[in-house]
């Protein structure tokens, strides 16, 4: 079976700085794979490359064997590879529910003109989006804040909303950039659970970047570690924990509190 995602020798240079340097790895279907590395290692850039938000300097990304690295970002999302953002990224002046409903765009069967004149298909679509949005609200436990304006939400809820927006697109692969950032222990454990259920119940393949090592160790099937843009290790949590290069990378950085 071909891996769902293949990252092949991908490189990104910003002027003289090589943010991602010749990184290759595969992601298998139904896997939870974490990308770790010290600050500035190139993790977010790697995600931007996979979702085609920035063009690669060289190398390519294949999704189910098809090259996606030169497509427009919305095309990549259309194919089912969807990213969430490291910065909390939501539609500020919409409610939680509106945020999720609008993000169902890819599931539209009616055309924009169909929506404009209000065809039967358009009405069916809207009803389906509303139902699915409620479903996602329940899944993420956002019932109490469903009608809150997104700009009024605290950090933890914003993260969840960011994930809800990603889920609304019905992704096959979801890229979560620091989904546990700004969360306390309980919130993190809840989120870890949700990410698992995402994979188990919805069959979504999950790629995540995270600094919270206990959470990463707990949730990941495999881990890829990068440092200064280069992949330095790849393996199971146990293998990564015992990898000398990884330990060195973390001890050599400010980020020493790896908590392994």
């Amino acid at each position: 079976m071909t891996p769902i995602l293949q990252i092949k020798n991908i490189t990104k240079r910003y002027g003289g700085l090589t943010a991602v340097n010749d990184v290759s790895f595969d992601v298998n279907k139904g896997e939870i794979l974490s990308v770790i590395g010290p600050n500035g290692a190139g993790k977010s850039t790697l995600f931007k490359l996979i979702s085609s938000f920035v063009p690669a300097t060289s190398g390519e990304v294949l999704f189910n064997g098809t090259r996606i690295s030169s497509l427009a970002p919305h095309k990549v999302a259309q194919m089912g590879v969807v990213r969430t953002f490291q910065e909390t990224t939501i539609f500020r002046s919409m409610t939680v529910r509106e945020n999720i409903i609008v993000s169902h765009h890819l599931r539209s069967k009616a055309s924009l003109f169909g929506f404009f004149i209000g065809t039967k298909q358009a009405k069916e679509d809207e009803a389906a989006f509303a139902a699915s949005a409620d479903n996602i609200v329940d899944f993420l436990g956002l019932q109490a804040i469903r009608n809150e304006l997104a700009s009024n939400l605290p950090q933890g809820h914003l993260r969840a909303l960011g994930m809800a927006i990603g889920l609304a697109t019905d992704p096959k692969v979801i890229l979560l950039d620091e989904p546990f950032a700004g969360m306390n222990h309980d919130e993190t454990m809840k989120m870890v659970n949700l990410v698992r259920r995402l994979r188990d119940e919805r069959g979504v393949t999950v790629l995540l970047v995270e600094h919270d090592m206990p959470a990463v160790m707990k949730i990941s099937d495999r881990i890829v570690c990068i440092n200064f843009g280069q992949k330095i290790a790849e393996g199971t949590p146990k293998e990564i924990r015992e990898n000398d290069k990884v330990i060195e990378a973390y001890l050599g950085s400010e980020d020493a509190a790896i908590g392994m």
Partner: protein
Amino acid sequence: MNAKKLMGFAAFLLVVFVFVPMFISATGRWDFYYTLTSVALLSVGAAGVWLTFYIGRINIGQGAYALVGGYVSTILVTQAGVSFWLTLPLAGLFCAFISVLIGFPILRLRGVYFAMVTLVLTEVARLSALALPITNGAKGITSIPQPGELSLFGLTIIPAFGSLSNPRVGFYVMAVVLMIITYLVLWRIVNSRLGHLCRSLQQNEELSASIGVNTAYLRLLAYAISSFFGGIAGAMFASIAQSIYPSSFVVADSVNFMLYCFLGGLGYVFGPMLGTLLLYFGWDLLSIAKEYQLLIYSGVMILLMLVLPNGVLSLLDKKESRA
């Protein structure tokens, strides 16, 4: 909720088609017809500008499309003998078409950069009208025939304007009908998925792309609709004035279109309509202040923007949340 909207719509129709004519014949202020016709048509152009605001772009170039629309209609009427009623949508479509060509490169720009480029567009349109042979240069095109009869399957829908005893009323009705159609379309856009996607674009373009929205296409679409409105407004203006010159729409007009939107409120579909009415009428009424007209006008504008940064219609919101 829907019954309430229908009532509001009926009340609006009553005002524009019954009360206003009654008021005008009672007071003998026939010039108000001309003023209100202008308001209606300017608000059609402003509706377009508002839609570009809705995707997060400051559009100070609507005058260009109004000018182009005016010339397209005029030239088709005077040189090809096409019925004005046909030239009206054609002028809109032509503007939509060139706005796609122009928008393709410039809609990538954001904030003041986009605004500055659109500001230049009006000047480019004016200079082109001066230079091109088909527009007859600075002399413009005058003595444009009034709109003829519009009939469908032998049924007269709109009589020829030349045959009307009072074409001023005819123009007023025509302009108001056009305005109503425009705002119904705009209202529908905003309340359908198209509008929801525009909002997503306004609030976060990157996120919008990440949920699979073809942001470049959507921006072009909104800008083309916007320019369509500008084009038909300009076409009807030219027809009513029976003349068009390179200076019929200048940079100041483009700026005004934008101000109408600001004043009425960027968050309200009917904001630009109200904004146009207040600003245009306000300016007219202030003519009694003679040399202080501009001073008072600007002062009031600044004050309004400070007190009501979200537009005049935000007054309604406040009342609602207090209740």
